[in-house]
């Protein structure tokens, strides 16, 4: 019996610890769904958070609270002072940075989020054009929950492969790997809507420039594999083959979908350095104007070559632009590091090499079919 008494004591002792656990009862906390950081007017940091609170009247409302302090935790305390419910960050989905702040340094913000175990690693990060506070505080006519809305906006565009993905996990990984720079979507208010207006590109955690939203396609094409994307491009007069049609127009807009791509990156010269970038695309032609005789395999072949050439040119242009601002968002440095033994690559060293890097882009596009029509 003595043995059992011992077990019972062991079993019941921990029940004394029940008061030591901090509870977060769902209906008694305010859930931060979105938080935005700006450079403060008086203090170092201004935080704007969208907090969802549940009212007893069976309605949930979203409070947008702006506070200023020198740390994000201090801002949370200040936010708490303005709200009836305890503010918790475990359901945070989006982190936004003001443009000015992004150009300063967002390194410490990413650190702060990575270090907090309650913060999900799959939250999306984005840069707001101008400041975050006005973007969130604006009273949109048709948007109830701005936090939820921006999250859905980012999520659906990323899932549709229309926008590059920048979760906390990915941003943290890119930030700390030697041969890669981070990039995020840019969002801005467009009258009564919120719009994705480009890609912010960073160098060492500082935003240096931005790309147009149309360039997302090329960035994604270089960066990884498409599974089912959509894109459009415009063939200029020089790129249109002479014998494609009789009356050659000035330009031909073309749209594709069901696009799958594979990329192959090879370091061919480690001194310059020089890369071979081969991209294989298989796609379906959905729109072309004016009409081209797609039934003719020869015409299709010519069209494919023309588009490949056009894509190569555009990809080279995007790479060249990023080189000019010294932001390697395509992870060429990672390839360099994994291909060169004992490269001892650091961010500084790579940015020096990156400026003069040469990339031979070769695109191989195949039009599998041209849509179905009656």
């Amino acid at each position, binding site marked *: 019996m003595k043995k059992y008494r011992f077990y019972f004591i062991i079993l019941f002792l921990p029940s004394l610890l029940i008061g030591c656990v901090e509870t977060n009862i769902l209906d008694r906390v305010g859930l931060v769904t979105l938080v935005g950081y700006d450079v403060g007017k008086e203090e170092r940091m201004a935080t704007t958070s969208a907090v969802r609170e549940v009212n007893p009247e069976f309605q949930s409302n979203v409070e947008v609270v702006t506070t200023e302090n020198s740390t994000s935790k201090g801002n949370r305390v200040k936010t708490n002072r303005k709200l009836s419910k305890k503010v*918790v960050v475990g359901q945070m989905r989006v982190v936004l940075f003001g443009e000015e702040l992004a150009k300063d340094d967002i390194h410490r913000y990413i650190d702060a989020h990575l270090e907090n175990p309650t913060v999900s690693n799959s939250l999306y990060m984005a840069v707001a054009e101008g400041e975050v506070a006005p973007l969130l505080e604006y009273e949109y006519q048709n948007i109830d929950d701005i936090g939820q809305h921006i999250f859905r906006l980012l999520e659906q565009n990323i899932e549709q492969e229309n926008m590059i993905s920048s979760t906390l996990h990915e941003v943290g990984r890119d930030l700390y790997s030697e041969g890669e720079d981070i990039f995020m979507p840019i969002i801005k208010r467009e009258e009564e809507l919120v719009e994705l207006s480009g890609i912010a590109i960073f160098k060492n955690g500082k935003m240096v420039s931005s790309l147009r939203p149309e360039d997302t396609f090329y960035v994604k094409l270089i960066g990884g594999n498409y599974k089912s994307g959509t894109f459009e491009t415009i063939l200029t007069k020089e790129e249109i083959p002479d014998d494609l049609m009789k009356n050659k127009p000035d330009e031909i807009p073309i749209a594709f979908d069901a696009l799958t791509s594979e990329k192959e990156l090879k370091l061919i010269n480690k001194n310059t350095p020089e890369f071979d970038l081969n991209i294989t695309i298989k796609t379906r032609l959905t729109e072309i104007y004016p009409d081209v005789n797609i039934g003719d395999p020869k015409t299709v072949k010519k069209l494919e070559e023309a588009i490949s050439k056009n894509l190569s040119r555009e990809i080279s242009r995007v790479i060249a632009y990023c080189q000019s601002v010294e932001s390697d968002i395509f992870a060429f440095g990672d390839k360099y590091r994994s291909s060169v033994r004992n490269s001892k690559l650091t961010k500084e060293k790579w940015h020096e090499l990156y400026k003069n890097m040469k990339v031979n882009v070769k695109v191989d596009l195949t039009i599998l079919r041209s849509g179905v029509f009656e």
Partner: protein
Amino acid sequence: MKFPLPFSKSKHNKEKAPEETAAPRKDIGMMTPLKMDFVQLIKDATQDPSDLIVKDIPPNITLIYIDNLVNDQVLTDHVISNLQKKSVDTPDSIKAALSIPEINASTRLDVIVKSIVTGSVLIHMEGHSQVIMANIPKLESRSLSTPENESQVIGAQVGFNESLSTNISLIRRYIVSPDLCNEKFIVGRRTNISVALLYINGIANEQMVNTLRQRITDLDVDSLLDSAVLSEMIDDNSMSAFPQMLLTERPDRFCDGLINGKLGIVVDGSSMAIVCPQSFIEFFQSREDQNLRWQIATFSRLLRFTAILLSVFLTPIYVGALTFHYEVIPQAFLVPLSESRALVPFPPVFEALLLEFIIELLREAGARLPTKIGQTIGIVGGIVIGTAAVQAGITSNILLIFVALSALASFTTPSYMMGNVIRLIRFPIIILAGFWGFYGIMLAFCFILIHLLRQTSLGAPYLSPFYPPRLKGLANSIIRLPYPLTSKRPEVARPVDKEKYKPEPIKPENS
């Protein structure tokens, strides 16, 4: 190690049958040739009950019997009329004159008294000390009916009743074989209840038979009113909440066990028979699974396993997530969950315990009340209390769904005893989830798992075929394999004959 049990298991075997062949001791009363002395002796030994009938048949024969215990028809037709017609002068000639199958003679009082309470007529002849005992019992039993607690759609619809002989005849109808062994024991110092141990010789493991036989004979209790009591007394760990022997009222389920090398116990006066050894997973298998096509049986088995998991963990997860881990709630659930709880004044653990308590209350009330009122209670509970509780803001409607779902799910267990345990273990898990969130759920889960790992059923591992792992058995436990793939009997009972049939390679059909 075991707790000391409330009854002692003595080392000596109890006597198995009333006929004791040992030499009579001095304190045992012997019969006298005198009629008056004989009648007085029997009256003293049986406390002179009001239904004790003493009947003289001239010239010198005396009959003594207990009126409510003997079959009147047989008594008049075969005993009295024969004794009157035929001339008898010695006890042996009485034996010859009566056309009754079970007839004995003895001079020992204890044997005679035991015989009269089992429904014998004592026949005494003046001048002879030997008493003839003609066993003509009248056993009241209800007719066979469908099993109330273990109903199934496809399959036999007959259930055991309270008569031992009826039950054994039902079993013998399913297993027509000379190998079916039937050992009889008398258990209970005061009540002398017959217990039958059944197994199939050549399949059942002899060691297990010996173990079980010894457990039954070692029992030293004064009464045994039901097989459920017996199973709790003789199973491996009487202190565990988990039953280690299957109680069933279906003869087909019972025989299914015997065929797989298990041992069965039938207790007189009890409509439930015991099957052992039984592994944990087998409590969740229905006999009906064998009757349905294997795809459908597999589906309902998986459904049942899902139901058990839901039943045990759904409410605790709700409590844990809402109290501590709001991070894990999917975004689409956030608003409905928090809005439904907005009016509730209690913490989730209290809310959940309250609802579970109400559900258990309804179940208990439904089980105690007569059937017709039980239905009313079901409606009162389901509609009135449920809806009213939500509208009054005592509970959230999402939790109401969860609790109702887990209560419903717990009733899918094909064994009522196991279903009760499933419902019981939910409560500590809910409380632990309220204390420490998912960590508490994990603690409870580990505790239960370790407990189950330590259990045995007649020495066989309780968690088999999960641990020790038996891959073939595992597949056939979780899904119901088609018959061509199940040539081997389950390993639980360690059958002597391991194969049901010699497997042949399955030939693809020519289409």
